[in-house]
């Protein structure tokens, strides 16, 4: 007898519906799985056989063929265990065939019949909803994650037995529908991010952080060890505007596909802070592997990617950031297919100004000119071109540490960011842009319109500071953001000068 059960396979952060066709015929007793199964899927037959045996179900000695259609799409997931089992059971007549129609199954089965969590439930349920599928049965550990998708019934099952019981009579009480309100989840789930008021002094660096968060400008901080570079970076997610539901769903999809969902959480509700160690390989950073998995930069989507000790990172790793920084996503190519993972991250970098960390304080720094040049030279070029802001931190005074003045707090800084974000949202509605940092040269003139006086100032800056065309545009973009933070339309000389003081292309880096 022949049956058709629904399941799905991941393609990047999207999912494709897969038909699991099962045929039980007379002949030599074999169990074949065809349709480009990966090793995980091929192993399914042993898991399924044992799980059925341990649940007291006898498989008749017959020729069993399972086909995963479309057949040319490679399937690498243990989530096919459940649909294969259900397909077999209905082909054996154990479950009425009509009861399985319109239901999508995913889940890994243990030898005792227990259902185990799998990766990528959210994108699969989303794809199912889009295809008009009525309901999904998923492992109970994944049920909450799947249930945030509207317009589809999601049931969580703890073991194979309950799924069979449910399908035999379609009794709602056996597998109740899990329903969650994503908005509710969203409210209670926000993680803890340290506050900026713990950063004493460093007024300029904090302002740079605001500009960076407001216009999505990448930021480079230099300074001696212990000045507070990492401390500032760690607090930046807290001043970015809270995630919207759609952003959260997008992030959850990435985390789910990567298998990085925090335990017991159905949604990723706060912006993450990804700080990979400098020994990271470029595959781990941008994504890759035999089955392309999202890298750190995709986990930092809509959030902060912090590269501490920038010059220590491998050249390959840094270079591989170029495409995602331009295109806001990363393409990973395999011979038969290409996956696209979103990677729209805010790049924050930190570095010591020289190998020992104390330059230009020549009383403490004993590095030779060559050593310093070699050190700074490691980051020169293309990556420096993509950094909009650069600021230097100095060691904090003792008065500041003791804390008379704590300066801006995260909520105050967050307000500044939100104001600038609002303005940008209104300005860029219906255009290809989202933030000031994305502005391309041809639209800059229009959006960063300068008055007579300001134009002369830019001209003077261009000549006296020996700017390049690129850094000219960079200053314009940053001054646009500074004006937006203040909520003013016209860019004034003050904004331009402030932007210029953060320019990264000093002689220092050459």
């Amino acid at each position, binding site marked *: 007898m022949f049956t058709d059960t629904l399941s799905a396979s991941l393609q990047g952060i999207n999912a494709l519906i897969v038909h699991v066709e099962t045929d039980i015929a007379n002949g030599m007793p074999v169990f074949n799985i065809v349709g480009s199964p990966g090793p995980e899927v091929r192993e399914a037959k042993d898991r399924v056989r044992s799980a059925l045996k341990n649940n007291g179900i006898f498989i008749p000695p017959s020729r069993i063929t399972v086909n995963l259609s479309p057949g040319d799409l490679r399937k690498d997931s243990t989530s096919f265990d459940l649909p294969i089992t259900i397909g077999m059971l209905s082909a054996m007549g154990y479950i009425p065939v009509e009861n399985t129609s319109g239901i999508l199954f995913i889940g890994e089965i243990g030898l005792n019949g227990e259902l185990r969590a799998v990766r990528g439930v959210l994108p699969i349920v989303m794809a199912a909803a889009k295809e008009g599928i009525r309901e999904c049965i998923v492992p109970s550990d994944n049920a909450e994650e799947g249930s945030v998708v509207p317009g589809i019934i999601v049931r969580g099952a703890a073991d194979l037995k309950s799924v069979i019981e449910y399908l035999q009579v379609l009794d709602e009480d056996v597998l109740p529908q899990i329903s969650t309100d994503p908005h509710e989840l969203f409210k209670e789930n926000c993680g803890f991010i340290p506050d900026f008021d713990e950063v004493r002094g460093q007024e*300029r660096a904090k302002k740079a952080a605001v500009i960076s968060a407001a216009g999505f400008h990448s930021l480079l901080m*230099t300074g001696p060890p212990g000045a507070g570079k990492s401390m500032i970076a760690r607090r930046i997610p807290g001043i970015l505007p809270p995630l919207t539901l759609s952003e959260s769903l997008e992030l959850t999809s990435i985390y789910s596909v990567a298998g990085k969902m925090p335990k017991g959480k159905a949604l990723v509700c706060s912006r993450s802070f990804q700080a990979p160690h400098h020994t990271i390989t470029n595959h781990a950073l941008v994504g890759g592997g035999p089955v392309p998995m999202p890298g750190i930069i995709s986990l930092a989507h809509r959030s902060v990617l912090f590269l501490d000790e920038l010059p220590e990172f491998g050249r390959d790793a840094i270079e591989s950031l170029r495409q995602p920084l331009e295109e806001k996503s990363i393409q990973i190519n395999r011979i038969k297919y290409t996956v696209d993972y979103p990677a729209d991250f805010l790049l924050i970098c930190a570095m010591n100004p020289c190998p020992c960390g104390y330059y*230009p304080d020549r*009383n403490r720094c004993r590095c030779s*000119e*060559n050593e310093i040049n070699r050190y700074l030279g490691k980051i020169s070029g293309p990556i420096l071109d993509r950094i909009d802001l650069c600021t230097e931190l100095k060691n904090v005074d003792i008065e500041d540490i003791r804390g008379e003045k704590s300066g801006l707090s995260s909520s105050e800084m967050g307000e500044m960011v939100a104001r600038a974000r609002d303005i940008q949202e209104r300005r860029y509605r219906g255009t290809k842009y989202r933030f000031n940092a994305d502005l391309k040269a041809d639209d800059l003139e229009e959006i960063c319109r300068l008055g007579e006086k300001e134009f002369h100032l830019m001209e003077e800056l261009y000549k*006296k500071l020996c700017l390049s065309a690129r850094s000219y545009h960079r200053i314009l973009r940053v001054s646009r953001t500074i004006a937006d933070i203040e909520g003013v339309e016209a860019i004034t000389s003050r904004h331009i000068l402030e932007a210029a003081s953060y320019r990264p292309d*000093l002689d220092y880096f050459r």
Partner: protein
Amino acid sequence: MEADELLLTHVPECDRPYAFWLVSVPWIGQGPIPKLLRTFGSPREIFECSDDELIKGTDKKNKLGPLLDFRKDHDIFREYDNFMRSGMKLTFVWDNDYPKRLLYIPDPPIALFSYGKLPENNKLSVAVIGARQCSEYGAALAKELGEELGKNGINVISGMAVGIDSISQGAALASGGTSYGVLGSGADICYPDSSYGLYEKLKKQGGIISAYPPGTEPVAKFFPPRNRIVSGLSDAVVVIEARARSGTLITVNLALEQGRDIYAVPGRLGDELSAGCNGLIGHGARVYLSPKIFMKDLFEDHSGMLNSDNDNMSFAGIYSPCAASEADKRHREYTVKKEPEPDLEKGYLEVYRELTLFPQGAEEIDVRLKSKKIESPGETGICLMLMELCLMEYAIQVSPGQFIKRV
């Protein structure tokens, strides 16, 4: 001690290949040459002696090896010919165009290999030396001094090293002056690599000088003898930034032996990079206060030399150590006026006054203004003013958040 009479005996043109042979091997200082000349006479006579005779005639037996090998392995006439075609100049101590100042130092180099010119005898020359790893303070002062010397037609002599040396030489050339680089390697080898631009410019607008034959690699032991030529070619030595133990101080000791005036740029107490300079001042070196005051002193001390049109005037009188200390005692009056403050708007002037040659950020200026009870426009405000001062060319941004005063 004055140059050996023997060294000054003129060697006829046709004997130059023999003399070239004597200096074809890099000696530290003079090596065995003075002894050889004293024992055997002219270079030609030395050449005509057998190996054994030569070894017997010097007490530095084991050091003659390379010289004897060279004679064995090469045809010195052909080598000399090749050298003459290489475009490099060779000046012996007995030649007329040999810089006169060097004749009055202990151990004058027997030969100078050079590109470009050699320093003129009747033009003032100043050695500007200092730390390789200099601070912004040192760099700014070296640039200022180099420029002023260049504009006033005073030669700048230095060692082309990274830091103070190359900054002052570069500034002198940029302002249209002349400068000479004395190398611790062969004159055909540019060391350090990073000074290559300067090296090429010096060839055109001054000279590259070395006591070592072409092809000599820069090795640490060759540098101290090189330093004696730097100071020997100069009328005064200005030290900008030196640590308490530094190579610069070796040059200072040699300069003192040669009776040159030492000027040290004072630094802040506790600043390691100025410890050497402050120590020199403690030991009686003259204090460098500004290019103008320095040049005024220099012209006064060397007026005799400048007024004489005669190329063959006596350097001995000026350069004996006792003459130098005599000059030191002379009372000096500084009439140079204080630089007027730039015409700046209120607010900017206060910030400008806080700028020094030591890099500072906006937050430090903020603290200082507040401690002086001056109303501060806040860190961001100060930063904007500093950027404007940069545009008005009163300040320089040296690193992302650090500014110094422009001199």
